[in-house]
């Protein structure tokens, strides 16, 4: 829970600066081969001076989860790479405020970097809402293709003052769980379905036939336990780590949405950085992305085994029936003012087809 960087050591990091990417000045240390553990160790030895720039990096998750570990990794790598030019302090567990607050912090110059789920940015770029729509995409890759193609998103985010160094940290897909088995969409009738206070989730729940109940995330576990809600959805790892499985032991891996984590800088800060430093920050983004994507899938496999041991039933569910239940959802939503782009859903269908064609299964 502490701002993480610490430099109690006396010797400067003995880091070899061979094999540097081309175009990067020699004062920048190559960190591309450092693992999380190595980075953590070496970062402890970095020394900072009076002219060190302090960079505040915030995240909502608690230390120990993959997301915050990735954030810490990014901070360590940056601290080592620039050898004390910047000092990235990592603040997990909403220490700098909840996600909305942190986003505002960035606009106000109170914070420089953060990691959050990409669809959270829908407040600034409504087209990102579709990432949370049930069964809009079939894979993380397909969803990434959409994000890359839709220029409106990048224009909006730039206008709002955020610069992304990574947005392809693939969380585990969203799944459903309930106190009874959800084999197909008709099983969701009468289910009190926990949603965050966001219209897209309300629409999802209604389309699938459930009764949406708004509950704060901090009361989610409790609400399940006491029957305020019967079930809901979450990214798969949260089902395990937040303990939802204890009250709702029937899991349906319908993969109804593909969420991403993203790391981004405040534009006001980013624009003060030299171009070569910006390049390094972007490459660190890719490095952390790779670490995250390699870790999270394995982690879920382990969690799943453990969940089954603990008595969780992974329901043999009919994904198609859920897809059918929500087949009109996209058309309905594109008529509301939920998205910015006109007829967004139809455009997404076209991009999805384009992607399928280029990447046949």
């Amino acid at each position, binding site marked *: 829970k502490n701002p993480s960087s610490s430099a109690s050591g006396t010797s400067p990091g003995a880091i070899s600066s061979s094999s540097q990417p081309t175009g990067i000045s020699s004062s920048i240390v190559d960190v591309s081969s450092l693992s999380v553990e190595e980075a953590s160790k070496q970062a402890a030895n970095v020394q900072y001076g009076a002219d060190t720039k302090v960079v505040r990096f915030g995240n909502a998750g608690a230390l120990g989860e993959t997301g915050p570990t990735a954030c810490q990794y990014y901070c360590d790598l940056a601290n080592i790479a620039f050898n004390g030019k910047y000092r990235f302090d990592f603040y997990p567990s909403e220490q700098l405020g909840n996600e909305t607050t942190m986003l505002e912090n960035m606009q106000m110059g109170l914070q420089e970097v953060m990691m959050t789920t990409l669809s959270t940015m829908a407040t600034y770029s409504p087209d990102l809402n579709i990432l949370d729509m049930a069964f809009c995409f079939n894979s993380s890759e397909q969803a990434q293709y959409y994000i890359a193609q839709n220029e409106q998103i990048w224009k909006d985010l730039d206008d709002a003052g955020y610069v992304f160094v990574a947005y392809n940290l693939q969380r585990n897909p969203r799944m459903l769980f309930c106190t009874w088995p959800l084999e197909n969409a008709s099983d969701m009738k009468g289910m009190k379905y926990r949603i965050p206070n966001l219209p897209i989730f309300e629409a999802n729940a209604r389309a699938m036939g459930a009764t949406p109940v708004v509950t704060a995330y*901090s009361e989610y576990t409790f609400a399940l*336990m006491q029957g305020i809600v019967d079930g809901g959805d979450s990214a798969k790892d949260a089902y395990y780590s937040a303990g939802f499985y204890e009250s709702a032991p029937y899991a349906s891996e319908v993969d109804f949405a593909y969420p991403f984590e993203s790391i981004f800088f405040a534009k006001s800060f980013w624009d003060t950085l030299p171009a070569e430093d910006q390049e390094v920050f972007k490459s660190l983004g890719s490095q952390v992305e790779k670490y995250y994507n390699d870790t999270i899938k394995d982690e879920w496999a382990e969690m799943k085994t453990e969940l089954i041991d603990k008595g969780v039933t992974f329901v043999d569910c009919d994904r198609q029936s859920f897809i059918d239940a929500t087949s009109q959802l996209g058309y309905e939503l594109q008529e509301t003012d939920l998205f910015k782009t006109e007829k967004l859903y139809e455009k997404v269908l076209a991009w999805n087809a384009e992607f399928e064609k280029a990447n046949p299964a």
Partner: protein
Amino acid sequence: MTSFDPMILLYFGTFVVLILLQIPISYAMLFASLEYLVVNHESFIIFAQKTANSFADFNMLALPAFLFVGCFMNEVGLTDRLFLMLECWLGHLPGGLAHANVLASMLFAGMSGSALADAGGLGTIEVKAMSEAGYDKNFSIAVTAASAGIGPIIPPSINFVIWAFLSQTSTMAMFEAGYLPGAIMGICMMVWIVIAMKTQNIKCPKSRRYTWRERFFATWKSLPALGGPIILIAGITTGVFTPAECGTVAAMYCVLLAIAIRRFNWAMFSKALRATIASTGMVMCLCASGMVFNWLIVTSGITTVVTNALMALNNRILILLLLNCLLLFMGCFIGAMQIEIMMAPILMNLATALGMSYIQMGVMVVLNITIGIITPPFAPALFVTCKATGGNFESALKYTIQFLIPLFITLMLVAYVPQVTEFLPRLLGTLK
């Protein structure tokens, strides 16, 4: 340690000097934060942002609701029936009324979130009844003031709501964690009453034995008032509603009840609403400016410094003892909420370092600072009781101070035995 900013001493110094000079505590926090913002060239939009953010926290909805319930119940005058009922059952026993006093506070605590509502409302009736029965008045005041402290421990509790808000834990889990320590607190006090009566020859005459008919009639009359705590306990343990909803349901119950027994009128309704706004405004202002102040505490690195300094002692028992002494000391001067708000980042950090749950830490903190309400120089609960009953502060102090013994025993149990706080949340599954 890289990030300790020595300027923090200036900010803290300013803050302490300003609050000693009777500047509103929230404005003192904002002014100290302003220094920080100016020194670090940061935007003061943070004032508005943290303010709006604290106001918009869904779980804080519980606050006006519980405040309203406390004010309104005293206005309607249902609480006296609770004490009268207990008097009928216990009055004839040695020290019976003193025990009834403690038990009434435990029941009242089940629907009110604050100690002073107990001391100022129910307390008047308790002291009057005990004095009329021939009890030593100073002892009666002492029992009343001390037992009022159960209010913030047995849920609902405003201080628990605020701790949950600050530490982003479940309000519900905090509530569940409070029942057992609250019960222990009451039992310890009742044991102390027996000891004090035996050893100090305090005047505690037995009153007459009430008939069974009288007892059942008094119980019947107090049922509507008992409905409040029963709804809340049922709601909290079975979870029909979230804490915020729980408070509002209790509020609506009180209003409907007042209408049903024909004690409802506009004057007292609007008085209770005004009192609710006065308290809500003050508390939320503290929370909001506290969030600004916390930004300074979190980003200046002082949490790490304090945590590391304490953890360097490398002795869990000693660290906890020191922490408790510090909190008790602060509790003698500053209100509970202010301490929670100022210390939350450090306390959370310490809890993690000590391997304590935020829940146990929260109950411990609230208990500590609640003890401050009967400890001089301020002792607000004692002051309010004396004011409401025409008693004398100095002479009541002699017996009041003795109640620190049962309170301290409860505190030690909470601090060193995690099960005391965590048993119930675990049983009900809110805590894993």
